[in-house]
């Protein structure tokens, strides 16, 4: 298996995530696109770990850390989204402009 194909797949997922973050208006869909970008990083870490044949499996352990951090991020992010929806009746990220002047 060629390493570069796997990394290209990761780069593709990351670019799709960037498109989703920039083009989506619904805050939950933006969170989904962030998940895509985090998973692209996981592909790189696991792929490099398999290529490098690391004895301590550092790449896989850091991908586990990324999974845990992503779970925390989704939990807090969805709580904020629910709070905004309760107060403003919308979760469109370009209509929540309280901190913009």
């Amino acid at each position, binding site marked *: 298996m060629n390493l570069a194909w796997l990394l290209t797949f990761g780069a593709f997922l990351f670019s799709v995530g960037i*498109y989703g973050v920039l*083009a989506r*208006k619904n805050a*939950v869909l933006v969170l989904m696109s962030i998940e895509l970008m985090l998973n692209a990083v996981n592909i790189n870490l696991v792929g490099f770990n398999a290529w490098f044949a690391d004895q301590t499996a550092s790449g896989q352990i850091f991908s586990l850390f990324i999974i845990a951090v992503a779970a925390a991020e989704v939990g807090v992010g969805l709580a904020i989204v629910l709070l905004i929806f309760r107060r403003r009746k919308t979760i469109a990220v370009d209509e929540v402009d309280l901190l913009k002047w």
Partner: protein
Amino acid sequence: MTLPEFFIIAIAVISAISAVAVVAAKNVVRAALYLVGVLGGLGFIFILLGAEFVGWTQILVYVGAIVVLLLFGLMLTAAPIGRYALDNQQRLLAFLVSAATFTGFTVMIWNAFGDQEIPLDQVVRTRDIGTSLFTNFVLPFELVSVLLLAALVGAILLAKKY
């Protein structure tokens, strides 16, 4: 092409198509279900790359927990349906940015790693992960557990009705 390579490439193609469907879907619930395709496919790719614990954790945490959480978020926020309700007016700009990112990454990747091969016959067992996690990476592991606790308390506090 060996059998694991064939399966990795096939699952990668399916995952890539599902990823495009996630950001292009007009229905938010369908976007969440396409996300299951992407994340589950990645879990199987991890298993085929010899990372069995990471693969099953990916399927368990993402498909089992995060997608369900996202679906709850969608159901509780009464999301409208349709392209103009879900996308803003910067779609062309966003496409250009992501295409430029992909091109730059691809050129760099193929310049640096174009001729490197991954050996697909090694498996990292769960025991190796555990040993490494509790000897070399104890401090990051404890920090992640504190972070998860803080996120749990913060989410409950934010979503509580006053």
